[in-house]
Structure formats: structure tokens, C-alpha cells
């Protein structure tokens, strides 16, 4: 019997596309834990604090003698303050969630059973990362009303809010993949958490090393193409994102700055035109995440790694 568009067998394959079982399980387990509810409460509290502090700062700024007394012109700064607060919290939470995901399964002695099922190591890793990203999205959605204030009062467009959520997802994927890689490497969750923050440090600061070396050792006046390494830096990506959202310009094209046309290399300058740098950087960060996930999957595959180690 044949359907107009698909055979019944093809329909069967389509219907089999279901939610990754690890995602479903993790969300069920998380949603029922009190820790998650308290986490949401703490997250909201931090955001409200950041909002109130920013408002107080804006108020004092508008009251100063240098001000044009127009408070509304400063309200746009609510966005970077709240966004940076969210980004910092996400950057802190995701590695903690994912760094204990594989090692936690090992500690709980559930990992072996998981490996004997038909799930491939990569599906396990993907499932863990997606569940971490979805948990973060709970937080982001919960923080939406506070974020919306900065858009309503600050006069930013709603599409900016949408792009902001996308960047948060991207950061979560990167943090999650670093966390899961460290989790696959370490037997204990606490070691995995510490190691993932060490990796964070390496990615954030190591990408600046070529630029620093070029400026210091070769006594070059131009940063040149050493800036291209910063495509992998989430911090620079967010800087660029905020610049694009708030001024519509790229961080690397600003006249008079360290990243001006005269300072940066030919390729960097042309990439900084429009939104090219931002999108390319997003692609690079995503690629880096995929690499970490692939390495984690390789590490947990019993047919590839750790096979020579004896179980104690």
C-alpha cells in the first residue's frame, strides 16, 4: 500500500524521529528537583539586582551636571548590563551542569548500561549538551520579562532580543561541549568542573596570545591578521554582538580604536564589514563546539579509548 507522497516505510522512518531519550530523561529528572527551582529563583534575583543597580547608575548619571537630563538616552545601557549578567551566569552554570553529566553517570553506575544500548556515543554526548542548553533556555525564558524592560525602555528592536537568545544558545553549546569533554576525560565530577573552567580560561585568553606576541615581540604597530584567532573567542564575539546591536558598527572597523582600519590586517578589515565578523565568529565557535563534542564521543566510546585501563 502506498501513500501519495511517502511509502509507509518512509512514514515509519519519519515517525521514528523522536526526542533524544537522554534529553527527555534529563528534563524529567531536572524539572522534579528542588535544586532547579532554587536555581531559577537565584537567577531571577541576580537579574533583578543587576537591573536595579543599572537603573540606579543611570539615574545618578542623568542627575549629574554633565548630563543632558534625558534619562531615556541612557536606558539603552540596560541591555548590555543585563545581557552581560545573563551571559556570565550561563557561562558559569553550563559547565557545572555538563561537566558532571558523564562523570555523574559513571559515579551513579548508570553509564555502562547506557553504553550497552543502541545509542551511539555521539548521540549520548549530543543528548547531554541539548539537555543542558534546554535547561539554560528555561532560565533565559524566565529572565525574559526583565530583559524585555531594557528593550521597551531602551528602544531596541525585538529582533535584537531574538538574536540575543541565539547568542546565548551558542554560548551554551560551547560551554556545554567543553563541559562534556571534560566530563568524558575525568572520572570525578568535581575534577571535570575544575578542568572545564581551565579550558574556558585557555579559550578566552589563548586566542589573545598571537595578538600579544605580535605586538610585544615583533614590535609591530599593526595587529594584522593575528586578530583572526579572536574569531574563536566568545568574549570578542559578544563584544562584536553588542556593538552591532547598539551602534550597528563592527568593533574592528571603528576609527581611532585599536581595531581601526589602519591597525587590522586586510582580511580582518574586510571581515569586519557589515555583520560578516559576527556570523563567521559564530560559525567558528560552533565548529569548536562540534570538535569538543566529537572528542568527548571518541573518549567515551569503549571501542576507541581507555580500553587499556584496568577497572579498579
Amino acid at each position, binding site marked *: 500500500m502506498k501513500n501519495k507522497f511517502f511509502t509507509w516505510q518512509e512514514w515509519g522512518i519519519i515517525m521514528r524521529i523522536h526526542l533524544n531519550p537522554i534529553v527527555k530523561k534529563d528534563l524529567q*529528572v531536572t524539572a522534579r528537583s528542588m535544586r532547579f527551582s532554587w536555581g531559577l529563583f537565584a537567577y531571577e534575583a541576580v537579574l533583578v539586582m543587576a537591573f536595579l543597580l543599572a537603573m540606579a547608575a543611570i539615574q545618578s548619571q542623568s542627575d549629574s551636571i554633565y548630563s543632558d537630563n534625558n534619562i531615556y538616552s541612557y536606558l539603552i545601557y540596560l541591555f548590555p548590563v543585563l545581557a552581560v549578567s545573563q551571559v556570565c551566569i550561563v557561562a558559569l552554570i553550563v559547565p557545572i551542569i555538563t561537566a558532571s553529566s558523564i562523570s555523574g553517570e559513571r559515579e*551513579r553506575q548508570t553509564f555502562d548500561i547506557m553504553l*550497552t544500548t*543502541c545509542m551511539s556515543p555521539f548521540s549520548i554526548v549530543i543528548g547531554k549538551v541539548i539537555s543542558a542548553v534546554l535547561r539554560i533556555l528555561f532560565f533565559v525564558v524566565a529572565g525574559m520579562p526583565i530583559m524585555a524592560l531594557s528593550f521597551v525602555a531602551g528602544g531596541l528592536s525585538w529582533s535584537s532580543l531574538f538574536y540575543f537568545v541565539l547568542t546565548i544558545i551558542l554560548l551554551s553549546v560551547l560551554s556545554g561541549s567543553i563541559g562534556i569533554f571534560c566530563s568524558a576525560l575525568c572520572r570525578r565530577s568535581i575534577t571535570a568542573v575544575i578542568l572545564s573552567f581551565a579550558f574556558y580560561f585557555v579559550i578566552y585568553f589563548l586566542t589573545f596570545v598571537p595578538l600579544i606576541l605580535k605586538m610585544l615581540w615583533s614590535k609591530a604597530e599593526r595587529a594584522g591578521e593575528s586578530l583572526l584567532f579572536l574569531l574563536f573567542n566568545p568574549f570578542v564575539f559578544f563584544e562584536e554582538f553588542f556593538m552591532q546591536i547598539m551602534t550597528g558598527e563592527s568593533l574592528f572597523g571603528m576609527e581611532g580604536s585599536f581595531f581601526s582600519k589602519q591597525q587590522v590586517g586586510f582580511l580582518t578589515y574586510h571581515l569586519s564589514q557589515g555583520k560578516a565578523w559576527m556570523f563567521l565568529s559564530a560559525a567558528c565557535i560552533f565548529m569548536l563546539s562540534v570538535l569538543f563534542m566529537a572528542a568527548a564521543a571518541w573518549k567515551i566510546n569503549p571501542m576507541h579509548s581507555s580500553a587499556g585501563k584496568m577497572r579498579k
Partner: protein
Amino acid sequence: MLYINNLTKNYGSFTAVNHLTLHVPEGDLFGFVGPNGAGKTTTIRIVCGLLRASGGTVKIGNTSAAVGSKEMKRLIGYVPDFFGVYDNLKVREYMDMYGSMYGMYARDIAKLSDDLLELVNLTDKREFYVDTLSRGMKQRLCVARALLHNPKLLILDEPSSGLDPRARVEMKELLKNLHSMGKTIVISSHILSELSEMCTSIGIMNGGQLITAGRIEDIMQQLGGGKRLHIQIVSEMEAAVRLLKEQANVRVESVRENEIVISNNGTDEEISALIGRLIQNEVVLTGFYREEGSLESLFMQLTGKTED
């Protein structure tokens, strides 16, 4: 059903499994016996795709799939020696999760998990959180979970460890049930009396090597150490010992004040003839009885020999 050929696992210079060759026929309840560190768990982990072998092959049924492949995993249900459960997850959800991990449809999982929970006597615990179940219940749930995708081979590594006597009996009955349904089961255990009651065949491992494998009765027959005869004697003890030592297939195991213990693998007629010969030689007997060979004595005999 399970064909292990020349399987070897080295950890550096230490050999955990040494050229193991084993065949478990379809429908068998096979007991894997051996002291700690014999290589049983290592072998099981290799078969289940949790460990990479240094050499050798593993085959299940007619499939030529590699160990650790999806095809192979579909054929095996594995119950590990120690396993944990998730907090905040109900029994129904636990089954649902593992069913999904085998790519099963939700409606099939629901139907099969109901049947399996009934089989392991956990139907009334469907809506209970898994972490609130007792150790025995968790073990039975793990068996139900391992059967969810209808594997051809069920492998249990020390399923009775940490269970109270009642839970052990329940587990034994469950395995007997599964065997009667035609499942091929491989079970490793230290509780030899339990294995001897339910297993159709055994494999004894020591020091990474398979010492012997086959049906329990056949192994005992081959070794001759299984059948012991206790002969109570009133007089002519020395003559009796001398006569017994002269007989073929008879080994004098111990001589006490008025009892001689011998082992032989003869038939009932041969034993009868042996007793007759003693009487003809004027040995006065008050009685004799045959001690049925136990798996424990066989195990001690075999592993002791290897250690020597």
C-alpha cells in the same frame, strides 16, 4: 548462540583473559564460575561492547556484526554487577527511557514494559520512583529493562550479589522462568549452589583461562572427582585400603578410623561389583553411601589444581 574464539585481554603485561574459547548453545542457562580476578567480568564486558579485546572474536547467533556495533547490542541484554538508578524517575519512565534508547516505538515500549513488569512482579510499582525500590526490586527491574528489546542473549554479572535470601530466591525463580521461555542466559556468580540448581552448563575460569566448560554432569563424569563413596568398615581396614588402591578408576581420598572415602566415576554396576569384591576379601562392612558431587567440590578441585 554465543561463540567466543581465542579471546584475549591484556592490561599492559597483565593478561586478564587468556585465549578464551567458549560456545554457549541456544536456549542454555550457562553459569560462568571462577574466583575473583578470574576474568569473568572482563569477558562479559568485552562481549557487551564495554571493553575492547586485545585479540580474538565474539559472535552471537548468525550475525557477523562487530562487538560494540548497534546490531550486536540489539542481541544482548546486560545486567551488570553494580548499577545505579536515577533519582526522580518513575519505574514506567525508566523502562520508557531504555526502550527509546533501543529505538523502540512508544506504543511497543508501553505494552512490553507492562508485560515485563508483570513477569518480574513489579506491576504495582509502575508509578513508584526507582530510587525508592529495594535492592532486590531494582535488580528485577534491571532484568526487565535488559529484556525490553527482546535480546537473544541475556547476560547477568553477579545478579545475586548484595541481595537478601528472599530476593535471591526470587531472582533464581525469575531466571528459571526465562530459561523455560527459551532465552539463552549467561550468568556469572559466586553462589555455586544457586548455579548448580539452575544452570544447564557451566564454564570454570581461573587466572584468565577457561579450565573447563560443558554440562555439569559431564564435567563431573570426566573428572571423576564428583562421585564419592563412603564405605564404613568394622575390620580388615588395611586389606580394604590395599584392595581399593589396586582397583582401576578408584582413588582413595581419605581413610578414617572406620571409614574410607573413595572417588570413582564408575557406573552403579561397577560400584556394586567393587563392594562385592571387598566382602569376598573378608572385609566387614557396616554400610556405604554415595555422596552426590557438588559444584563447590568440583570448583575447589579444579581451581585448586590450577593454583598448584
